[in-house]
């Protein structure tokens, strides 16, 4: 097992503590934002756990968990929690319905893809992020050394493709950009917007820094996912670990009361 493949174990531990902490806050405050963050973090943790597991052994249902929760849904559910803090409730309820229906639709597509998984290409020696997708090679492009290839028809053309677990053109892969765009927009956009509001009003320095950290954490995983899409899957686990650490610190910092909220003497009116 490479060093890279040990990173998901760390991420899983951090996400477990983080998820419990957020759900505990939800039970105390009953704020739906905490519920959606908790669900999103649980999905993130499940994805990290699946990566850790797949570094040791193959199980197609663990792969199901990794792709559906880790790659497709978690950013959107996390971002939806932020939306609960920023937008009028009536709108958020409508979007919640869409998010739930969309998630069920993606789960159904993933279930349909399960019998078509090319399990023969799985190896414990490579991170799952480097072997999940089948990639069509462009004209003149050669397959990496040792890669398994297949001749297939894709979008009406005969192509050579590097084999991956999910076959070329699997519909579930088309759903991930929707969820990730929504997740990026709400989670990162929401954190940047909140940080800007506090910064402009010159109040709550802890919330400014916390939102910057949350945005940076969410961007770390967004950036790593994009690199994975581009064929550089080796950075995904590092991105996840960074993301888990930065977001955890950010959330804790945002929840922490400022020291001077307790003991700053105010001028006494005459």
């Amino acid at each position, binding site marked *: 097992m490479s060093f890279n493949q040990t990173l998901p174990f760390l991420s899983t531990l951090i996400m477990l503590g983080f998820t419990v902490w957020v759900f505990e806050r939800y039970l105390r405050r009953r704020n739906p934002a905490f519920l959606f963050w908790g669900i999103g973090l649980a999905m993130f943790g499940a994805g990290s756990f699946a990566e850790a597991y797949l570094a040791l052994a193959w199980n197609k249902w663990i792969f199901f968990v990794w792709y559906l929760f880790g790659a497709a849904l978690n950013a959107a559910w996390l971002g939806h929690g932020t939306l609960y803090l920023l937008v009028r409730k009536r709108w958020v309820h409508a979007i919640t319905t869409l998010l739930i229906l969309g998630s069920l639709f993606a789960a159904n597509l993933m279930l349909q893809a399960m019998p078509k998984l090319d399990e023969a290409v799985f190896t414990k020696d490579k991170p799952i992020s480097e072997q999940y997708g089948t990639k*069509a090679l462009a004209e003149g492009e050669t397959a990496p050394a040792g890669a398994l290839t297949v001749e297939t028809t894709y979008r009406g053309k005969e192509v050579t493709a590097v084999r991956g677990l999910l076959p070329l053109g699997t519909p579930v892969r088309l759903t991930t950009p929707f969820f990730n*765009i929504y997740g*990026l*927009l709400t989670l990162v956009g929401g954190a*940047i917007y909140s940080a*800007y509001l506090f910064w402009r009003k010159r109040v*709550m320095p802890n919330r400014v820094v916390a939102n910057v950290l949350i945005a940076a954490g969410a*961007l770390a995983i967004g*950036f790593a996912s994009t690199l994975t899409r581009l064929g550089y899957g080796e950075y995904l686990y590092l991105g996840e670990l960074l993301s888990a650490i930065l977001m955890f610190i950010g959330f804790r910092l945002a929840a922490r009361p400022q020291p001077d909220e307790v003991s*700053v003497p105010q001028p006494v009116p005459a």
Partner: protein
Amino acid sequence: MPKMADIYIYLIKIFTNSLAYLHKKETIGQIKNHEAPMAAQPQANRKSHIPKDSVLFEKIVPLALIVMGVITLGLILFAAGVLLGIIQF
């Protein structure tokens, strides 16, 4: 039936007796003496403020927000490109 005037007189008597009782027990004095320290007690400042002349808040935070905003926009455009088939994978 008691007259309204009798009721008023009765209530005024109760009030003055109570005042006399409190003065006798020095209760009002005690309350007055407590007002000043209570007012002088520290009150919660609900909104702490961003320190002035801080490099973190004057330089780093705005720069980080702009850079992250640009990266977010780039990632969203990339994902949209994949979705629309402009970027092939």
